[in-house]
C-alpha cells in the first residue's frame, strides 16, 4: 500500500536536493544580506505635476 502512494523516484530526488538548496540560500541571505541603499537624508519629494498658466488666453477677471 505504501508503494502506491509514494511519489516517483525523480520527484523525491528533486525534493531531496532542492530543499536543502533553498534553505541554504535563505540562510546565506540572512548572514550576507544583499547590499541595501543607504536611507536618504530626506524622504523623496512626491511627484509634482507642473501647473502652468495658459498661453495667449485672456482672463475675464481676477
Amino acid at each position, binding site marked *: 500500500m505504501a508503494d502506491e502512494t509514494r511519489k516517483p523516484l525523480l520527484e523525491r530526488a528533486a525534493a531531496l536536493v532542492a530543499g536543502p538548496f533553498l534553505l541554504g540560500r535563505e540562510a546565506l541571505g540572512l548572514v550576507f544580506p544583499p547590499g541595501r541603499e543607504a536611507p536618504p537624508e530626506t524622504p523623496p519629494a*512626491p*511627484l*509634482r*505635476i*507642473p*501647473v*502652468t*498658466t*495658459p*498661453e*495667449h*488666453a*485672456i*482672463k*475675464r*477677471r*481676477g
Partner: protein
Amino acid sequence: MKTRLPEHGPLETPRFWRTLEERIETPEAQQAAHDEFLPGAVPAGPNYDDVHGLPPQSGVSRRDFLGLVSAAAALAATVACDRMGQGTVVPYTKRPVEVIPGVANYYASATHEGRRVYPVLVKTREGRPIHLTGNDEHPGVKGKTSPRVMADVLRLYDPDRLRAPKAEGRVVGWAEAEAKLHGALKEAKASGKPVLLVSGAVVSPSRKALLADFKAALPTLEHLAVEPATGDAAEVAALASYGQAVDLQPRLDKAKVILSLGADFLNGEDPEALGAWGAKRRLKSANESINRLWVLEGPLTLTGTNADQRVPVSPSRLGAIAFALAKELSTKGISLPAGSDLSGIPAGTPAGIPPATWTSLVKDLQHAGRNAVVLCGAQMPAEAHQAAHLLNAMLGSEAVTVRAAEPLATVKDLEATAQKMAAGAYAAAIFWDVNPAYTFPRAAAWKDAVAKVPVRAWIGQVEDETAAQCHLLLPESHWLESWGDFSTPGAAVLQQPAIGTLYDTRQGEDILLGALKALGANVPESYHAYLQARWKKELPLGVTFEQALHDGLVKVEEKAAYLSIRGAFKGASVAPAAKRAAASKADGLELVLFPGFATHDGRHGNNSWLQETPDPITKMTWDNPVAVSVQDAKALGLEEGDLVTLSLDGATLRLPAVIQPGQAAGVLALALGYGRTTGGVAKGVGANAFPLAGLDPASAHVRAGAKLAKAGGRKELSRTQSHHRMEGRDLVRSLTMDEFAHNPKGHHHMPELVTLYEDQKFPDHKWGMVIDLAACTGCSACVVACQSENNVPVVGPEQVARGREMHWIRIDRYYEGELENPKVVHQPMLCQHCDNAPCENVCPVNATNHSSEGLNQMAYNRCVGTRYCANNCPYKVRRFNFLEYTAYKTEPETLAYNPEVTVRPRGVMEKCSFCVQRINDVKIRAKGEGRAILDGEITTACMAGCPSDAIVFGDLKDPKSKVSQLVAASRAYKVLEELGVKPAITYLADLKNPAVEAPVGGHHEA
C-alpha cells in the same frame, strides 16, 4: 429590506412617500423611519440606555480600564509627535504675471456634449481650474450649465489620463508617433486607399473648416460623426421631415402649453430650457401666467416628474397617438401642411388615453396655437419625432427653433463601415474622442472588422475599449487645455485654455494640423493660430479677438440661421410615417435605452463625482439597474434588488431590477454608459446596455420583444432614496393653481412657538435662503456644484449602501398618489442653519456653533466625532467622515481641491456652510471698495449652479433683498417649523397646473 407589492393597496396611505416601503407601510419601513439612520450609518455598540443603574459588570476590571487609558494617552502623545505631513512652504519666487496667490482668476471658455454647446466661466486658483459655471454673457444659457459639464473639471485631473503617446503598447515621443501616423496617411494618399476618421458631433465652425482642409489634402478621407447615446431616430426623422439634419432648441419662454412625447428636456442637460421653465414657474401670485406641461411617456423621466398632466404610454404607441392628435386638431380648424395625409390614422381618442384627458389636451393645444410646442425624446421612434414635427408645423410653434446642423452617422452607417473594414477597404483608421468598440451594438463584429485595418490610431484622454484595439495612442488635451469655437443661437462662442497642458498631450486639431502639414498642405503652426486667423476675418467691426476671448463670445444676429417651421416641413413625409406609426406595436416587453444621467454614453464613466450623484429618478448611484413598472414587477414576482436576466436578440444581461412607480406597464428602462471594461473608476460599474441596442436607426434605442426573468439572487443597491428620512411629518407641500389662488396655506396651521431662550441678535447680516419647489426640477446641478465648490469627498458604492454618502445637499424625491402614476415633488435638503439649532446644544466640545450672521458653522479641528449633532438634527443633513476619504489622495486628484475650503479628515462631522468662503470673499471685496454688499452679489454654489434659479440667497436683515421679499410670499413655509428650531431656509410650495374641464385651459392660462 425587501419590498413586496401588495395585492390591494392599504386603505389609507401617506400623502407623500419616498420609497415603495413607505407607500406600502411595511413594518421594516416604519422601523427604518423610527430608527432614522441605516444600520451601517450607526455602528453597533454598547447600550447606554440605562443611565440610572450602575454600569454593567462586563468583566473589564478597574486595573484594565486604567491600563487602557494610559495606553491611549501614550498613543495620543506619540501620534501628536508625528512629523508626517509637514512640508516646506515656498513662496512664488517667479510668480506668473496672471497669478496672484489667493485671488481667483476667471476665464471664459466653452465645451460641448453632442450638438449641445455649453459656454462656461472657469474659476482658477493658482493656475488650477477648480470650478465651472455657465457664461453669464451668453444670451441663451445666462450663466448656467449642466451637472455633467460642472463635473467635467474632475476629468482634467483624472489620474488615468494618458500622459504620453504610445505605439504598440510602449511609450514613445510625439515625433515617432506622428511619423508612424503620417507615414500611413501618405501611403494611403499615394495608393488612393480610403482612410477612416470617426469623431463626435462637429459643432465647431473651425473644426469643420479643418476637416474640410483635411479632406482636400487627403481626398480618400471618409469622416463619420457619431453620437451613440441619443439614438438615431431624431436624425432619421429630421431627414424625412426637413430633408436635412436639424438641431431643435425649445424656447420655453414663449410656450404656454408644452407636450412632451418622452422628451426629457428638464433633465439638466439644457440650461436654456431650464432657465425658461424656472421663470414661468416662480410665481408670486396666482394671477400671474403659468405654462402647462403635458407628458406622454413610458419610463418616468425628470420631465415627467414635473408634469402637470402625465399619462404613462408605451413608446411604440407615441407616434400613433401624436398623429391622432394632429388629425383631431385638423378637424378643429388647424390646417395640415401641404401634402400631409393622415388617412391611415383612425379618428377619435386613442386607446389607453382617458377621453376627458384627450379632450383637455386637444383644447389646450388648439387654444395655445403658436404658443404651444411638441417635443419628442431623442431615443423615441422616428415616427414619434415626425409626428412632433408635424404638430409644430401645424401650430406654427414659436416655442421651438429649428437650425440646420451637421449630419450625424447612424448605427447603420457604422455597420456599413464595419463591413468595409472587414473587407480590408481602409488603409488607416483614426478614432478621435469616440469609443465605437464599446458603443457599437455588435462589439465582437466590430473588433474583428477593426483588426483588418493595417494602421489604427486613437486620439483620446483615458485609454478605453477602442484604444485597446489601436496601434497608435495619441493623448489628447482636456478641453480646459484646448482652443476651439462653437456656433450657438445668438452668439459665436470661443473656447480657450484655462491651464497649460498638464502632460505631454496635444489637442486633436493640432494632431490633424500636423497630419495636414505632412500631406503637403500649407497651414498655420498651431490650431490657436488657425482659429485666430479664421476669427479675425469674421469679427464684427470694432471687436478684437482679445475682447472676444475676454467675453468668451461675440453676439450675432439670431434669426438668420433658422428654418421656417412650417415652410421647411415636407408634408409628403407624413403618410408613410403615419402608416408605420399606426402599425407599430410592441410584442412582449418594450425596452427603452437612455443616456445615463451620470455617464451619458460612457464618456463620463470615470468621473466619480457623477457616479456618486444619485440618479434623479431612481436615486441609484454607481449602477444601472433595469427599471420595471409596478404592474410588471407584480406579474413577475420581482422585488427590488432581485437579479434578473434581460434578453433581446441573442444578447443577455444579468443585472439588478428596481421597481419604478409611474413607469408604463410593459416598459423596461435601462441607462447606457455603464459596464465599461477600462478606467480606474468606470471599470466594472453596472452593465453595458449597448449590446441591446438595435441596428435599425429609426428605433435603435426603443426595442420591442425584450424578455425579463428572475435570475436568482439579489444585489445590494447603493441607492439613497431611503437614506436620511425625516419621519412622517409635513415636509413637502404641493399646491394646484386653484389652491394657490384660494387657500395657499391649505390645512397647515402653525402652532404658537414658545421658547425659553432670548431671540438671537444679528447686528450686521442674517443670511438666509429661499428654495422654490415649483421651479426646482430635481436635476441635481446643485449637488454637483456643491461637491466641486466644497471638496465633498466621494465614498464609493459600498459606503453609499450603508447610508454614508457625504453630499452636503441632497434632493429628496417625494411621490404622491397612486403607484402606477404618482405625482412627484423634488425638495433640495441642506443644513437649515437654524437659529435654535438642536445640533449646537448637544456638541460637547462646541465644534458647531452659531455665528453672529446666523450661520451654523463647524470648527473641524475641534470636532471629536461624537455624532451627537447628527443624531439631534431633525433634517438629517450632517455628514460624518466614517473613513479616511481624502488623506491618501495625491496629485493630480488634489489639484481639483478648492483651497478656500478645508479638506476634512476621518472622524470629523461636516455639513453645508452656506458657502461661507464666498460670503467672506464678497465681504472683503466690498470692504476694500468701501461699499455695502449688494443684494444678489453673494451666490452660494448651489444657487449659482441651479439652472432654473430655484434657489435665492441673501441677507434677511435687508427688507429690500429678494430673499426677504420671498420669505413673505404666500407659498412660503419652513420645514418642521413646529419644532421651533427657526430654520434660515424657507421653501415655497410646489405648484402644479393640472388641466381643468371648464373654462378651456383654465383661468390660469396666460
